């Protein structure tokens, strides 16, 4: 495959272009998706027309619900939400209708919809423009939760998501958009439910997701002289590649979970519980979690930084795990 270096945003854009070319039933709508300023949807309207790519009024319940309906009626909608925080005004359509219609109907209908949402803190945007919330969606039955961390995964996971017949929330950390990486020009898939072994190691397993994968890698680099760190990116929280995590912990005997989402009842707790249930005897140290405390995210950059996981905090957690 021909690889070039492109950004995360450009990779998402390529996935849209290739899939929409292939399948007429794929439609895109959301707030300002026809404008050129957002990398993921740039040029889609010019190429595929205003019927298939359309701006919606700022009414998340209506247009997310329309996505659910269009999916049930046989289309394959990609609905874009400017920020994940805004999903909170449309929870009936997401958590009741999108998530449960397949089950409630006993499989009589399916909802092949991809809800793309931008996520993430670190831009001084305050408490309603900075959240991750993947734990919230992962908690509800019926939604696949996809969290890419690299341009390669962004393209491959988005193509897989579009082709998948279940509802997905596809979560894009906005600070990842300028990240560059090698990406094939051709269409390809990264399967949902298969973790990525980002870095092999023998002393400590670090499970991280989204932007935090990069912080974990930086921490692993810094710790090189003292410890060999294995970094695992689950890539999808639902379905979760449990085996990849368990196998790694069985090898290293130590686990640090890094999560930008809130700590309490969150993804980091789920991974810790998984290991406690299925690999406790392999653990040589208590599980450590580096996650955002249950505090609304403040505007002030120093306060925000103080709360968020970081390379420094991961390094500290690994050192504690190493005893």
């Amino acid at each position: 495959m021909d690889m070039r270096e492109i950004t995360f945003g450009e990779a998402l854009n390529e996935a849209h272009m290739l899939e929409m070319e292939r399948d007429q039933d794929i439609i895109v709508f959301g707030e300002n998706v026809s404008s050129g300023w957002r990398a993921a949807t740039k040029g889609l309207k010019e190429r595929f027309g205003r019927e298939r790519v359309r701006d919606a009024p700022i009414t998340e319940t209506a247009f997310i619900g329309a996505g659910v309906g269009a999916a049930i009626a046989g289309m394959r909608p990609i609905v874009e939400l400017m920020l994940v925080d805004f999903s909170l005004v449309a929870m009936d359509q997401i958590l009741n209708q999108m998530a449960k219609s397949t089950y409630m109907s006993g499989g009589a209908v399916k909802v092949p919809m991809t809800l793309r949402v931008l996520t993430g803190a670190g831009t001084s945007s305050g408490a309603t423009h900075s959240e991750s919330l993947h734990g919230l969606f992962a908690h509800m039955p019926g939604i696949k939760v996809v969290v890419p961390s690299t341009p390669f995964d962004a393209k491959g996971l988005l193509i897989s998501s579009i082709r998948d017949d279940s509802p997905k929330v596809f979560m894009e950390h906005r600070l990842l958009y300028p990240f560059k990486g090698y990406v094939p020009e051709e269409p390809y898939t990264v399967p949902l439910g298969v973790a990525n072994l980002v870095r092999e190691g023998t002393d400590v397993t670090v499970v991280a997701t989204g932007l935090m994968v990069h912080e974990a890698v930086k921490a692993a680099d810094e710790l090189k002289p003292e410890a060999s760190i294995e970094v695992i990116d689950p890539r999808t929280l639902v379905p979760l590649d449990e085996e990849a995590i368990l196998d790694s912990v069985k090898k290293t005997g130590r686990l640090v979970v890094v999560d930008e989402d809130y700590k309490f009842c969150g993804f980091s707790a789920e991974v810790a519980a998984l290991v406690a249930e299925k690999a406790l005897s392999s653990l040589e140290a208590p599980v450590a979690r580096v996650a955002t405390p249950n505090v609304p995210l403040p505007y002030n950059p120093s306060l925000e930084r103080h709360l968020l996981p970081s390379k420094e905090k991961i390094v500290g957690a690994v050192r504690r795990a190493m005893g």
Partner: protein
Amino acid sequence: MSKLSLDEPGLLGLYRVMIRIRVFENAVRRLAKEGKMPARFGLYTGQEAVAAGVSAHLGPDDQIGSTHRPLGHLIAKGCNLNRLMAELCGKATGFNKGKAGPYHLFDPSVGALGANGVVGGSVPMAAGYALADQLRADGCVSVSYFGEGGSNQGGVQETLNLAACWKLPMVFICENSSPEVQRMLGHEIDYPQLSIDRVSLRAANYGMPGSTRDGWDVLEVYKAAGEAIKRAREGGGPTLLEFKVHQLEGNLEGRIEANEKEKVWCPIELFKAKLTKDGVLTPKIDEKIREEETTAVQKAIDYAMSSPEPKLSEAYTDVFAEGG
């Protein structure tokens, strides 16, 4: 399919659908009281004219989104009575393997895309059905049912706006049993759902036509729905139709038969009188229709009662699409 004037078979067809809904729901009431259904739920008694008059203009490829009083909508849309009754009884042979029950029932084979347990919940989805129709340019429409309570939900208001902005081929049907109607029935209301008597006034706010009609007059429903559905099919965009309705026996605690006061507003009694006066319906024809529908409903009950329970393993299936 959508002739705006009806011949004799057409008139009797409307009458038959209304009888079918009433007989079916009366059976549901009985079965629930006898403990043969897992739950009690909202019924449609007194509103039959709306579903019958609207669905007379719809084919199996047109879609509807329904409410938590869905049986009238589903039966008028053509759902198979056996599988419908089986679903209500929670049986494996129901449309949805007994996982839906009344509030979440889907029968895509006739475009019945969802009863809905959340007030106003199906309305945004119905816009999605219409969007699919518009993109496929297949001449199909979607009909979105809700009540006057649902009409206040943010999602319904948002969807009225979205449908108008996107000129979607859909018709919003508000079945309003609001204060005005309640007062007619002599009920006292402390705090109403609405501060206006006509939900259709809101249509103008979103740039679509709206009107209010008597929902107990099936021919008025038929005519108004026919015009709105035709307009949607021809690309004219959405309409908000409001039908005043009397929920004669709105819940399962209610009686099987309407009382004398309510009978004045019973759409079936009213239509029967008109058809009789016009010489379309004779006692003999009436009796035949009622007998046939009663037999069909009894068959549905027998089917449901003799159907198996779902296997316990079914509790875990269909969380995701098959193969996913």
